């Protein structure tokens, strides 16, 4: 498969759109969940599946257990949104959201899902809104994974090219931090490139 190349302009636009999306996400979380935090400037990398596995291993500490929530989004721009949070952060967040000392497992799971909902909705919606397309969100699922082996290479070998958009969020007061990965692949990368081209035409028209 011929690899799709992104120019510096494409990456600049994507980076700028993601900066706006991250700002939106932070504001929404503060508003809806009363959690005040910061999010790092997103990193954008184009890789293959092996590179993605390595990237995740370099980013996520191997010694913790993590709540890993995956949510698919479909439409002209489709992909997978992954939110990774350490079990300690997840408990702290459940604690914050449900205002109880010892949140039940179900409370923690739901808290993580709620946080993922807000992050995915704000970040992806903002991005797609800027690109004038609509997306559909699918039901997210959460699982606890020991270590950082988030990608099953045997099951994910079909992808030639993957865009990784990653950022880190921190809520100092609640002692919470998590990592976000937005992944899109192959045909969707071409679609994203076309949408950015369209955006560039709009900007320079």
């Amino acid at each position, binding site marked *: 498969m011929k690899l799709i190349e992104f120019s510096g302009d494409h990456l600049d636009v994507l980076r700028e759109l993601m900066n706006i999306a991250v700002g939106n996400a932070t504001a*929404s979380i503060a508003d809806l969940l009363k959690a005040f935090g910061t999010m790092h400037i997103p990193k954008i990398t184009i890789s293959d599946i092996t590179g993605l596995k390595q990237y995740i291993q370099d980013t996520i500490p191997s010694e913790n257990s993590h709540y890993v929530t995956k949510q698919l989004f479909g439409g002209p721009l489709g992909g997978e949104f992954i939110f990774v949070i350490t079990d300690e952060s997840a408990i702290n967040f459940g604690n914050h*959201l*449900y205002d109880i000392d010892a949140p039940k497992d179900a409370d923690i799971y*739901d808290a993580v*899902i*709620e946080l993922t*909902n807000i992050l995915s*909705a704000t970040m992806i919606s903002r991005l797609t809104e800027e690109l004038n397309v609509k997306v559909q969100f699918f*039901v997210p699922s959460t*699982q606890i994974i020991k270590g950082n082996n988030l990608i099953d290479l045997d099951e994910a070998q079909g992808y030639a090219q993957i865009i990784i958009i990653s950022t880190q969020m921190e809520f100092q007061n609640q002692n919470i931090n998590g990592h976000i990965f937005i992944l899109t692949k192959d045909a969707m990368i071409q679609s994203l490139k076309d949408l950015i081209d369209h955006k560039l035409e709009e900007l320079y028209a």
Partner: protein
Amino acid sequence: MTKPVDYPNILLDALEHGVMIVDEEFNVVYWNQWLEINTGHTYASMVGKSLLTFYPDIDYRTLQRKIRTTLRLNSPTFYDASLNNRFIPIPRNKITSSVLNTMQLQVTISPYVVDQRMVMIAVYDISDLHELKLTLQQQMKKIAQLNVELQHDKQIIDDNLLIVKTDGEFHIIEVSKAFNVFFGFEENELIGWPLQIIYSDKTPLSEYTHMKKTLQDLERWSGEIEILSKQSKALWMDAVVTPWIDHLGVLSSYTAIYHDITDKKRLELLATTDPLTKLYNRYRFDEIFDVTLMREHWKTGDSFALVIADIDHFKHINDAYGHQRGDEVLVRIAEVLRRTLREGDTLARWGGEEFIFLLPHVDALRAILVAEKLRVAVEKLSLFVNVQLSFGVSLFVAGDTQETLLNRADTALYKAKENGRNKVELL
């Protein structure tokens, strides 16, 4: 209250899942037919009322937060579908399994009319999927428990049994911890070497070849074998070697399990050998004669010879040089005889200065030649005194017993002595 008939509502009623429309304060605006049927609450009884009235046990704080998030972001929010249902309880009528008494719901809260603060809550029955997942989890738990037990058993085996695993070419691929400890090897020291490396050279090549042949025929081999420790200490092992066949019927490896029988062999040796010459004793010779050779002979119709040898003038050696030197003569002669015999022949000390031999697969001429070879070997022995042996040979004929054979050999020996000693006579 009568339902207004309009197309959007007809559509909602036609859906094969539950749909309700509620506002931010949980007041019900629409309750579709699926919910009517499955909850038992009618459209008329629900619309205009708060969910709180009918379902007071829901976590309304969470629900409100999710509704607000939906309205604020104009995007759907979800309950975690992997957990036990946290939304309204809906009875489930499945009779054939009783894991779930209420439906497991997948709940999606979508924006409906945002400026009127209304959302649409869709509930999907995912009970069958959830049941499957719970069953799978239970099975996985059982497998995990079995795995732990298996690991425990494996650990016990590794710590206590002497096991060596080889590939199809008899190269060592795995060695148990107990084997390494018992024989003084490091963890991976034997890996890659041929299996033969651990066997002492006392194991006859024919035995090793027989073992390989049996295993290559995909049959189990068992027997006694001597193994050398790293410090070259020889230890006798009872061995069972099993070929492993994979699911395609192809040989994949061999597993050898050893059991230390060194003490048993030592006792056996004490019971069956003469302590001075280390040759078989009379008891062992009788055993071999009765059980093995006679039976084999009748089976094959082959012939064999019995030979008795006596040291000439041994009394004189004892009298002239003392019993200690006499014993020395016995030991040296025993060594020479053992070295000179063919593989498969049996030699024992018959008593005093007498030795006895079983020579299988011989005729009269061959038996005499063997005895003559033994006589010459002893004659050439360089000792503090010249020693010679006289031999009496008897050849098995139909109807012979051990007694008749022995009598003839004894008579032949007597004849050899009569004829001047240092001779071989056949009768």
